[in-house]
């Protein structure tokens, strides 16, 4: 068995081995192996390409951009996605604009340990995919499976444009698979995680698993719910979503992020503009609550969508 976290480590080990242009830069990623041990063992094997950085997110991203211009393939690890706000300017104004302005691509990958975990609180729990997806010039990935953690990270490094890689902290150790994948869907393609006919739940990251649990529970009521894992939120695979809604006629979009704007709104807006006639009921969204992510585990599990909340939302969608 291999975990989501181990898949990320394996992907980086392969990347470092196969491509001398690849290097890893971030706080404590060296001999310590990173706050979540995702880079464990890599510095020992590649001491000159796995480098500890100072507590300087802006400079860390700037360094990656400069190295990318010179032909390298940097992988930046933010200690937590939440701290990327301090490197945001370099990501959205330097990396994201470089190709459009100069025709020189900017192949950097910024790994964002994302999402909530019990007791992590307001500053170690954020989901920032929407923030980055809003900006032109960025690719935003949100792997939800062990297989995607591995293959999408490898693909992210191959992509010539800046990739924000939103890996979910909750999945690091809990999520396991038999083995690493030998093939995978290309970036930009969503995956039907579960086939159904009564309603479509569009989701990504850790919420895919909450949605699958909800779908399973709804089988007892005789419902077959289709669950779509977006995999990348920018670009968004509208076709796969529309095809599903064409089958089910009902849409619920589930996201761990805050309710204003974001992935859920974008998905609903696209389906309504391009697939209005396919809808048999008003499309619905289920997001986190509109407050900072609370520290206490009881508050946290009420703040984020859970399987049971998704079940309730889907039931009312099915009755609509």
């Amino acid at each position, binding site marked *: 068995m291999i975990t989501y976290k181990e898949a990320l480590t394996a992907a980086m080990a392969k990347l470092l081995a196969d491509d001398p242009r690849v290097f890893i830069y971030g*706080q*404590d990623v*060296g*001999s*310590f192996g990173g*706050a979540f041990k995702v880079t464990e063992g890599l510095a020992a094997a590649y001491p000159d390409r796995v480098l*500890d*950085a*100072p*507590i*300087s997110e*802006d400079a860390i991203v700037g360094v990656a951009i400069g190295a990318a211009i010179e032909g390298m393939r940097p992988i930046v690890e933010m200690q937590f996605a*939440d*701290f990327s*706000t*301090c490197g945001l300017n370099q990501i959205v104004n330097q990396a994201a604009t470089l190709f459009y302005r100069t025709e020189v691509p900017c192949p950097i990958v910024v790994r964002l340990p994302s999402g909530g975990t*019990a*007791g*992590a*609180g*307001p*500053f*170690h729990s954020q989901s920032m995919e929407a923030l980055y997806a809003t900006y032109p010039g960025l690719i935003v990935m949100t792997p939800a499976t062990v297989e995607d953690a591995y293959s999408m990270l490898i693909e992210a490094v191959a992509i010539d444009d800046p990739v924000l890689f939103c890996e979910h902290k909750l999945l690091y150790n809990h999520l396991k698979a038999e083995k690493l994948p030998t093939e995978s869907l290309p970036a930009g393609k969503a995956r039907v995680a579960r086939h159904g006919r009564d309603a479509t739940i569009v989701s990504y990251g850790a919420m895919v698993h909450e949605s699958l649990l909800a779908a399973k529970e709804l089988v007892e009521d005789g419902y077959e719910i289709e669950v779509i894992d977006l995999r990348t939120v920018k670009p968004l695979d509208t076709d796969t979503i529309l095809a599903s809604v064409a089958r089910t006629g009902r849409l*619920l979009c589930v996201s761990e992020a805050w*309710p*204003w704007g974001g992935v859920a709104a974008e998905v609903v807006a696209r389906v309504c503009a391009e697939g209005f006639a396919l809808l048999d009921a008003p499309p*619905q*969204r*289920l*997001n986190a*609550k*509109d*407050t*900072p992510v*609370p*520290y*206490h*585990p*009881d*508050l946290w*599990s*009420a*703040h984020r969508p859970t399987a049971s909340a998704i079940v309730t*939302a889907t039931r*009312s*969608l099915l009755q609509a």
Partner: protein
Amino acid sequence: MSSASRSSGPTRTEYLKAFRVMLLARTLEEKLASLYRAGLITGGVFLGRGQEALSTSVGFHLHKGDIFAPLIRDQAGRMAFGDTVLDTLRTYLGSQLGSMRGRDGNIHRGRPREGYYAMISHLGAMIPVVAGALMARRMRGETGVVGATCIGDGGTSTGAFHEGLNVAAVEKLPLVLVIANNQYAYSTPNTRQFACADLLDKAAGYGVAGHRVDGTDLGACLSVVGGAIKAAREGGGPQMIIGDLLRLVGHAEHDPGKYMDEKLKAAPVGRDCLQVAEEFILEETWATADEIAAWRTEAKEEVDETAMKVRREPTPDPNEEEWCAISETRLQDNFADA
């Protein structure tokens, strides 16, 4: 650039008062560690072991009406400034009755209304906030106020540190910046964090007064920090203090800190400031071993009893949450969430 001068050193009463704060903080943090190991605290537990002398000295010399924005390893300084065993445990255990009401936890606590600011995680971010608070006090015509904030060696690499200290210098504010140079930022040694020969060299680059102190020596910390706070209060502008010491624990309780250099642990910088202070007290015969043992027991009892009590307190009830992040409820946005 001043340095610890015994002359202006603390009196017996001051020293013992500070020592007992250190002792209480140490005792409380040992309790936090065991509660964490017992799985009773969720989330990170970051301890200030080895930094109590420096941290205590900050809270010790601040007055009521001053501003204090502590950071990760300031349990001792927080208590010297007025934080309690009760509110500390309430915050770590997520009691509904704590100052953060379970919405935030551990070191992310404070009571801004009382000048005790609640840190956010992003390092360096509290420095400009304290600067702004001091500008507000000045605009209001208040004088004799001091604002103190703490940070680590690693935090000096943040843009927020730079911008915040520079603004304080430009405005010549009574801001005291205490840098606990504990040799590591998580696993990262200073050699990977900065290249200046001496962190103190940064002071001149901002045009602020610089002080250095042996962070393992309570007497020196009380003198130097006290002197810096006095200088700020009297209009000397921002004061930067470098306290040299060693983080005597891992970064947090999940981290055994295997990467730490044994040589540093054996060096003078690796001394345990609490033990050093205890030996000094006995040497000076300011207290007997029995008295100190009694204080320790007293501290342990307060901590244990409070923990017992707090564990019985209500935790936040999600069903009673209004889930509103703003104070003007009329402006709350309505999401017809599924």
